[in-house]
């Protein structure tokens, strides 16, 4: 336990720690603790400008950890599956049930019938639930699992194709060097893209940067900083980018020298843009028809972006969670190259991932899971752009339910009979929640390791109650960027009979007769995880002080700029692509011979875009942005957060009036996948023809199948793009008064 530090009274301990939500920040917080209760939260107390200031989510940490609906004891199902009725059982009984079912499934169907569903609900080095479970099931003979992450696969594919790297971001203070910042589908006021990101953006504006927001919504970031809002229909970003390239090429505004020096394949892209490839000149007028953005605006935007140096085109991942999402990130990167902004302070590389290589979660140490015997005879997928290879032995995460329903006959890697799920709420957070309901009712056994009765946990036959980060010790990192490292210090003893995932897996290993599963104590593990990670040992001298302070900040002599070295000295620093250059034309993509993955970035029509004939019946495009008062579906039950923003569907006043809908009216939003019921928010902040439901509200179908929790994914598609992006923002819906 963290050494006590008293500054508020004798019996109150102050514990320096952080949370482990699936958040882009890992902000230092101070928990005031007495009698195994968190009393209140204070933020980081470092002097400015070093302060890493937490947001409302961690401000409500007390109500999350001590929530009355937390699972404190093992439970078994007593009602029908999906009803969420449970009764308390002992750990012995819980382990007996689990092992009995696990062994039965393995004996009857083989290891491949065991589906392990993991996720990002709490991401840390040691207590990373999915890794403990994978380690266990690997030693048990294997299992089938999923590939891909819901957030960012489009951006990952685009960055790997274009740059051969996922570290495409600048440290956020570099925005102070920008003269123009284009927020293209990026709303950091809601979605924490690294601690203090919104603050740095505000300061960049105060420093004189011009800021343009391109988005279907006039979101809170735009409302705070943007000089101009350019509304755009969902899924059409790439068309506008292509038309901007068209203007630049025709007016010779692009940086030819930069393109010659650092890129390959620009001419092929230019041929497409100018219509030499397909006879369609991709002019602003062409893009205006598609996107709803006025041709004159596109023209002006192209000239302004090309002429203002340095300029940061900030694409992100939301528009990439769509039916051809990776094209948006690739095209953004291509514009960054055409304007010579890659590798330059105040510029940007695009790619949507925004990661920097200091304190990045991708480089976090973790307990070694070992190899999955089920995957040993599969293809080598490391670094591949071919998503078809990735789904030979794994299930794309956004098709989990279909895989359960269709199995091998449907082309999936196995016939799933049981699921063990942790660190996720996939019923809620991947596409098509009603299909999840059908799929999970078909399985023979479901165990869920959880803290809360989530939409997914409601389908469990068995619940393992898991500790929160306040009850554990660990190291953690924000997913996109440091530059800092944080520590999770145990603030309270485990509540009720909760155990960590590692303890649960270790107990199961012992009962299964798996030897040597967990050879270390928690403290030993932490020391090993620290010492085995070169980033820690490079930056941090004093392990004990790091643990006690809970944070180590890295002083950067200058902002981190992605590909600074490649641009400064290309001879000695090739890009990590096959050609050593930025690949506007990718031979590897061409070799895929997949029309969904063209070698150059392209705008392509897709199912459920606004030109689909389905739009006759469902004329509104649905987008599902991040919530402000949750981290995805985590924290959904926390009252202090819930009351800060009512869950309502954003609809333009014009669309609402045409349907007889007034503000706050209960409405039904529906398509062929489902119907959700929630109040309407009439606003001028979303363009006509588009509606928004913030993701993460918990799926709660009533007896008629209407989702009263209004989970956005009741309406979204369980599909993925050519580059593997989850298709969360390409759905057509209709709205009517309830």
């Amino acid at each position, binding site marked *: 336990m963290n050494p006590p530090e008293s*500054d*508020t009274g004798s019996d109150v301990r102050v514990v320096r720690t952080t949370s482990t939500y699936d958040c882009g920040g890992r902000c230092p917080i101070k928990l005031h603790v007495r009698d195994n209760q968190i009393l209140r939260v204070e933020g980081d107390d470092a002097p400015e400008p070093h302060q890493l*200031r937490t947001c409302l989510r961690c*401000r409500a940490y007390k109500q999350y950890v001590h929530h009355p609906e937390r699972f404190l004891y093992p439970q078994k199902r007593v009602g029908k599956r999906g009803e969420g009725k449970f009764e308390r059982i002992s750990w012995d009984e819980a382990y007996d049930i689990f092992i009995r079912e696990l062994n039965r499934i393995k004996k009857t169907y083989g290891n491949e019938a065991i589906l392990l569903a993991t996720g990002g609900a709490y991401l840390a080095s040691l207590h990373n639930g999915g890794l403990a479970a994978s380690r266990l099931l690997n030693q048990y003979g294997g299992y089938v699992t999923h590939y891909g992450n819901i957030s960012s696969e489009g951006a990952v594919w685009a960055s790997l194709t274009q740059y051969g790297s996922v570290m495409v971001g600048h440290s956020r203070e570099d925005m102070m060097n920008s003269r123009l910042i284009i927020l293209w589908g990026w709303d950091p006021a809601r979605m924490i893209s690294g601690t203090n990101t919104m603050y740095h953006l505000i300061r960049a504006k105060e420093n004189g940067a011009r800021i343009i927001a391109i988005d279907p919504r006039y979101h809170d970031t735009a409302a705070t900083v943007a000089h101009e809002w350019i509304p755009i229909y969902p899924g059409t970003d790439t068309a506008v980018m292509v038309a901007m390239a068209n203007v630049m090429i025709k007016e010779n505004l692009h940086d030819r020298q930069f393109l010659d020096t650092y890129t390959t394949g620009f001419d092929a892209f230019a041929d497409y843009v100018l219509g030499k490839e397909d006879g369609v000149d991709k002019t602003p007028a062409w893009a205006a028809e598609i996107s709803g953005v006025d041709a004159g605006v596109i023209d002006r935007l192209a000239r302004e972006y090309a002429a203002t140096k340095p300029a940061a085109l900030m694409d992100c991942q939301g528009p990439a969670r769509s039916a051809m999402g990776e094209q948006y990130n690739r095209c953004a990167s291509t514009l960054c190259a055409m304007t010579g902004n890659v590798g330059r302070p105040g510029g940007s590389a695009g790619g949507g991932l925004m990661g920097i290589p200091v304190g990045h979660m991708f480089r976090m140490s973790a307990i070694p899971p070992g190899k999955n015997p089920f995957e040993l005879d599969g293809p080598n997928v490391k670094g591949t752009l071919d998503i078809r290879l990735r789904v030979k032995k794994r299930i794309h995460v956004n098709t989990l339910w279909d895989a359960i329903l269709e199995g091998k006959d449907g082309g999936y890697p196995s016939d799933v009979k049981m699921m063990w799920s942790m660190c996720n709420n996939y019923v809620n957070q991947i596409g098509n929640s009603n299909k999840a309901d059908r799929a999970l009712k078909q399985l023979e056994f479901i165990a869920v390791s959880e803290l809360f009765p989530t939409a997914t946990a409601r389908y469990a036959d068995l619940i393992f109650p898991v500790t929160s980060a306040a009850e554990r010790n660990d190291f953690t990192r924000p997913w996109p960027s440091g530059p800092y490292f944080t520590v999770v210090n145990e603030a309270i003893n485990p509540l009720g009979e909760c155990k960590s995932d590692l303890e649960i897996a270790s107990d199961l290993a012992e009962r299964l007769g798996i030897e040597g599963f967990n050879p270390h104590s928690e403290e030993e593990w932490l020391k090993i995880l620290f010492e085995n990670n070169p980033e820690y040992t490079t930056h941090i001298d004093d392990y004990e002080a790091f643990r006690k302070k809970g944070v180590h900040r890295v002083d950067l002599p200058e902002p981190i700029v992605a590909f600074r070295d490649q641009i400064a000295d290309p001879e000695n620093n090739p890009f990590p692509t096959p050609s050593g250059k930025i690949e506007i034309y990718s031979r590897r993509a061409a070799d895929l011979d997949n029309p969904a993955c063209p070698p150059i970035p392209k705008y392509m029509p897709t199912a459920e875009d606004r030109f689909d004939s389905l739009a006759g019946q469902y004329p509104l495009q649905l987008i599902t942005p991040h919530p402000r008062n949750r981290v995805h579906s985590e924290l959904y039950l926390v*009252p*202090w957060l819930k009351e*800060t923003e009512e869950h309502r569907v954003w609809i333009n006043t014009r669309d609402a009036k045409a349907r007889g809908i007034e503000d706050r009216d209960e409405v039904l939003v529906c398509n062929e996948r489902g119907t959700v019921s929630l109040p309407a928010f009439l606003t001028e902040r979303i363009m006509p023809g588009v509606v928004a439901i913030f993701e993460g509200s918990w799926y709660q179908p009533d007896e008629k199948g209407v989702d009263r929790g209004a989970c956005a994914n009741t309406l979204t598609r369980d599909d993925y793009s050519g580059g593997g992006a989850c298709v969360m923002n390409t759905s057509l819906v209709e709205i009517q008064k309830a």
Partner: protein
Amino acid sequence: MQMGFYFEQTRCTGCRACQVACKDWHDVPAGPENWMRVLYTEKGSFPDVFVSYMVSPCWHCVSPVCAEACPPSAITKRAADGIVTVDPETCLGKDECGAKCLKACPYDAPQFGPEQNARMRKCNFCLDRLEQGKVPNCVEACYTRALDAGPLEELREKYGSGQEAEGFSSSKRTKPAVIIKAKTA
């Protein structure tokens, strides 16, 4: 001396971290009692929209009309720092008194829980934190650094004398202790 707040409306994203931090520090349950509120304004029509937020704690007015309106004199303006406090023990309760303080206040600062005859409570400038040399919790919680607090004279020297903003009108009668950098269209 008069303590007061500074609000940089141009930096506020409407996130409500201030509201949550306030409830956490003072252990106020979710519900109608909000010592710190965030008011929303949306004007114009697509695509020419104006959006702003306005924080709304107690402004610790120079002339607190709530105190004058309170029948049992449960509300006090502290001489040393101008902070307006309430003694819940003396307060008659919302139902018995009819919430005269709330009716008098132009900013809806007096707050009541949902319980029967709730006693009035409200922003007390985090007096306990002030004694430890800390700023109010809402100020520390604002991750866009849109809030500050301190002696009003010092705030005026640092930030000017803005007093009008969308969602707020400075009452000449009560003289709220706040400086605002207003957001304009």
